[in-house]
C-alpha cells in the first residue's frame, strides 16, 4: 500500500518535473509538503527495487530448484561490509550449483543515493541488490525468523526443502560449509 502511494507520488512528481523541472520543485518546496519533496528525493531513480515486507516476502519463499542466500545488510554495518566479498565469491563459484545471492539493504532512505548506490558501484557488486524499506520492524522481523532479534548482519539460506537463519557474520569457509548442507 505504502509502496503504491510512494509510486503514485513519484510518478506525479516525475510528470511534473518533465514539464518544468526547476519551477515545479520550487512550488513543491514552498508548499511545504514534505512528503512530496521526500518522495522526489528518495524514491526517484534509485537503481534497486524498493520493497516493503509484503513486497520482499516472495523472495524469501521461492519454491524453485535454486538455493537462495538472503543477506540482510547496510552500508553502515561494518561486519556486513566485511563479509560481502564472501557472498560475491560464493555466488560466482556456485552458479552451476543453482545458488543465488540476494542482498537486502536496510539502508535508510536518505542513504540510498548517497551511500548505497556509490558503494555497490565502487565494489562492482554482481549479486542482486534490493532495498527493504519497512519501518514496522517488530511486525516483519519475526516473519523472517523467530530467532532473529534484529541485529545485522543476518542471513537466511533456503531452498524448497530446507531453511536456516543465521544472526551473525560469516567467513568464506563458514559460508561454504553452511552452503554444502543445502546443495548436496
Amino acid at each position, binding site marked *: 500500500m505504502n509502496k503504491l502511494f510512494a509510486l503514485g507520488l513519484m510518478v506525479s512528481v516525475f510528470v511534473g518535473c518533465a514539464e518544468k523541472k526547476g519551477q515545479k520543485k520550487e512550488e513543491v518546496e514552498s508548499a511545504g509538503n514534505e512528503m512530496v519533496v521526500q518522495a522526489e528525493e528518495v524514491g526517484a531513480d534509485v537503481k534497486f527495487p524498493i520493497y516493503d515486507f509484503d513486497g520482499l516476502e516472495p523472495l524469501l519463499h521461492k519454491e524453485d530448484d535454486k538455493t537462495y542466500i538472503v543477506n540482510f545488510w547496510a552500508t553502515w554495518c561494518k*561486519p556486513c561490509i566485511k563479509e560481502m566479498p564472501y557472498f560475491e565469491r560464493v555466488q560466482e563459484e556456485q552458479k552451476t550449483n543453482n545458488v543465488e545471492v540476494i542482498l537486502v539493504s*536496510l539502508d535508510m532512505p536518505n542513504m540510498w543515493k548517497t551511500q548505497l548506490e556509490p558503494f555497490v558501484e565502487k565494489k562492482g557488486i554482481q549479486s542482486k541488490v534490493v532495498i527493504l524499506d519497512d*519501518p*514496522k*520492524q517488530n511486525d516483519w*522481523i519475526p516473519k523472517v525468523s523467530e530467532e532473529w532479534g*534484529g541485529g*545485522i548482519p543476518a542471513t537466511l539460506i533456503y531452498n524448497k526443502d530446507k531453511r536456516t537463519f543465521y544472526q551473525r*557474520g560469516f567467513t568464506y569457509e563458514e559460508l561454504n*560449509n553452511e552452503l554444502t548442507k543445502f546443495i548436496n
Partner: protein
Amino acid sequence: MKKTKILGWSALLLIFVAAFAMGFKVATEHNSDKGYEVGDMAADFSLKNVDGTMVSLSDFDRAKGFLVIFTCNTCPYAQAYEDRIIALDAKYKPQGVPVIAINPNNPNAKPGDSFAKMKERAAKKGFTFPYLLDEGQKVYPQYGATRTPHVFLLEKTASGNMVKYIGAIDDNYQDASQVDEKFVENAVNAMLAGNEINPKTTKAIGCGIQ
C-alpha cells in the same frame, strides 16, 4: 521449545567444533540465547560515565525503575533515536524511571565509540542522563543486548531490579511523527500503574554490538 532450541544449538556447535578445530568464532553465537528474559533480576554494575564518575543502579535511591538503554555514537539507528531517548528521560526521570545509557561497543573495534567520542556526543546532543562505557564488555552479554539501540526496562523491587520489558523504543525508527505504538512509554506507564505490560518484548533492526 527453549529446550529444543538449546539442543539444536548444542548440536550445531558440536558440528562446528568438529569441522573447525581451530580459529572458529562461536562467541557471537552464544549471545542470542543468553541474557535476561522478562521476569529475571538484572545485575547492578559500576561503569564510567562521560562526566568521569562511576555510576551504579544502586546510586539512585528514590528510583522506581530504570530504562537501561544500550546505544552508541555511530549506529544510524541509535542516532535516529537519540532525541527520543532524551525525551524519555525528560518524561520519566521525574516519575522515578531515569534513562541509563550504556555504550556496549569495543572502542578498539569501533574508534567512533571511544570514551572521548562518547563525551563529545553527549555534550553535542545535551544528554540529560548518564552515558556509560561498558569497559571490557562485561555488562551487555549479561543483559543479553544484541544491538543498538536495545532497551531493558527494570522495576525496582524488594528483591532486586526486575526486567519488565526488552526491545525497541517504538515502532518507527525513521519518523517519530509516524509512530503508531510507543512500546517503551506504554511499558513504563503500565509498570508505574501496576498494570500488565503488553507487549513485553519487541524486535527492531539495530547495529550488531562489536
